């Protein structure tokens, strides 16, 4: 492993400046700007096709930007490729391994490629960390998707990187697997001091670990900031569990709260309301024959994210 210096907290680990990536005539990333500070967990969010994967691939030099600049640890890939990659571990899209090799052989091979001094020892250590001890000599072809995700996390930690880039690490995991993955990410950040860039569609998982957020849409940064600050700035969401929710939404949209409500993926009615408006909204619903079962006031990432994207897409 190449020698490295410690990163001071609050120093910039990733800085993207007017990043552009074109595939022929299609612009996947369109002037993206964002920064990631050391020691944080950044949730990198956006709908499908927003340019997240393309951006992450540029971050680890799998694809080259068409324009713009990218700095990692203050350096760029053109002059310091190996130095930068020695400090980054990544799991991009899905964990792919040599199916004809065992899990341990796969890790050892990648550890050698990363310049790890004792590849076998380090591989065994990480198999233990991700909960795959006892399966070292099994061929990867016999592994479930969840086990491959764990092995994917292990491979990106082989060279003890400062920055860990995780693209959809929770895909295909069962509920226990998701909890384990969340705990491993928190452990890496809090116990081992690693900076994490996490892209995921599991918003509840991102919410549980992220200290910062970047939301991208159509290749551009929609918003960036600390998760706490962004969520506190957002309008408080009132979640109303009501019978015949679709009809209730139609009635509200035709009345005084037009455009203020939506149905979430569980069929519940959510509305951006001020505290003083809640009694009137409930009264309006009950007077029109709807049964209100529960009212919950909350600031969830999911609501914030959906509102943000709805506004952004309406503006465009």
């Amino acid at each position, binding site marked *: 492993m190449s020698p490295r210096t410690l990163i001071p907290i609050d120093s910039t680990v990733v800085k993207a400046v007017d990043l552009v990536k074109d595939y022929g005539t299609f612009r996947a990333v369109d002037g993206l700007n964002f920064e990631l500070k050391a020691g944080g967990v950044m949730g990198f969010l956006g709908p499908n096709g927003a340019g997240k994967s393309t951006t992450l691939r540029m971050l680890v030099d*799998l694809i080259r930007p068409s324009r713009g600049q990218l700095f990692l640890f203050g350096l760029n890939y053109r002059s310091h490729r190996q130095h930068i990659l020695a400090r980054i571990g990544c799991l991009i899209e899905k964990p792919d391994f040599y199916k004809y090799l065992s899990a341990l052989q796969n890790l050892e091979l990648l550890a050698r490629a990363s310049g790890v001094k004792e590849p076998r020892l380090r591989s065994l250590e990480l198999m233990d960390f991700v909960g795959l001890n006892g399966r070292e000599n099994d061929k990867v072809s016999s592994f479930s998707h969840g086990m491959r995700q764990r092995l994917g996390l292990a491979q990106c930690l082989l060279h003890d990187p400062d920055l860990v880039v995780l693209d959809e690490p929770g895909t295909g995991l069962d509920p226990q697997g998701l909890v384990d993955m969340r705990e491993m990410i928190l452990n890496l950040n809090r116990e081992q001091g690693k900076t994490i860039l996490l892209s995921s569609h599991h918003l509840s998982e991102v919410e549980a670990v992220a200290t910062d957020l970047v939301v991208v849409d159509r290749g551009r940064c929609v918003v960036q900031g600390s998760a706490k600050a962004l969520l506190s700035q957002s309008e408080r969401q009132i979640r109303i569990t009501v019978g015949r929710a679709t009809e209730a939404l139609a009635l509200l949209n035709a009345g005084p709260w037009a455009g203020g409500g939506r149905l979430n993926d569980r069929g519940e009615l959510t509305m951006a309301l001020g505290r003083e408006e809640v009694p009137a909204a409930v009264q309006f619903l009950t007077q029109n024959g709807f049964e209100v079962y529960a009212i919950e006031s909350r600031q969830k990432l999911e609501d914030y994210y959906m509102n943000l994207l709805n506004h952004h897409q309406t503006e465009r």
Partner: protein
Amino acid sequence: MWWTALRNESVKILAKPRSYLGFLAITLLVGVILLALALDGKSYIEFVTSSLQQSLTVEGSMLNGYLVGFIVLQMLVVHLPLLVALVTGDLVSGEAAMGTLRNLLTRPLSRRGLLLSKYGAAAVYTLVLLLWLGIMAVLVSPWIFGVGDLAVLSNEGLQILPSEEVLPRFLQAFGVAFAALYTVACLSVTLSCFADNSIGPIVGTMATIMVFTLIGTLDVALFDQVRPFLFTTHMAAWRSLFLDPVPWGDILFSMVLLGAHWVLLIGIGLWTFERKDILT
């Protein structure tokens, strides 16, 4: 780091079942040829030398281990490009298809170093495959058929090489055959840099060999200028080592031309791979 990368590539080639297809194919084909010659070798020799029988009287048998080895080489060297391309055409594109190229290219190793290790692994594989053919042709055949002078038919007529000269010539011939086969390996690794599946480079390599061979054999004035510079023209240069005197000038030209192909193909591969976006 290059040696580490070469070691990794070798580990992968060793673990892949398709790597052994070539060895299995050579063993089977040599086995069939040896069996056929052991059972009916005399008829074969009579058929091959039929045009000379009016002017030549042979005492004893021309059929010996060295001649069988020579026949084996002549029959099999034309099949080796496919066996080489099967493995080397997969070295980059197979990893792209599997998704493992992502893992490798995000390691602190230069793209150039990684690709050169793959060209290195292709050289090792080609050499080992050729060595296996050599063992089968030059060690197993004499063990079954015994040794003796080697009778070789050429454009000049029948040439008899004393038995003590044969092994050194075989060794040199394997060197020249390696240069030709490694050109095929370089071609398939280079094509592999352009593709995201291994079928394309393998088919592409064989198609190139077929087209170049066709250009080389068609007696058309247009191709006369091109023919000496096609690598396929020099694929059988190893046979010249069994002529007397050996045309060293021609062999040197073949080696320089094949070497130039290596440099050109590796250069194209590096240029492409350094700029390739990894989207799989």
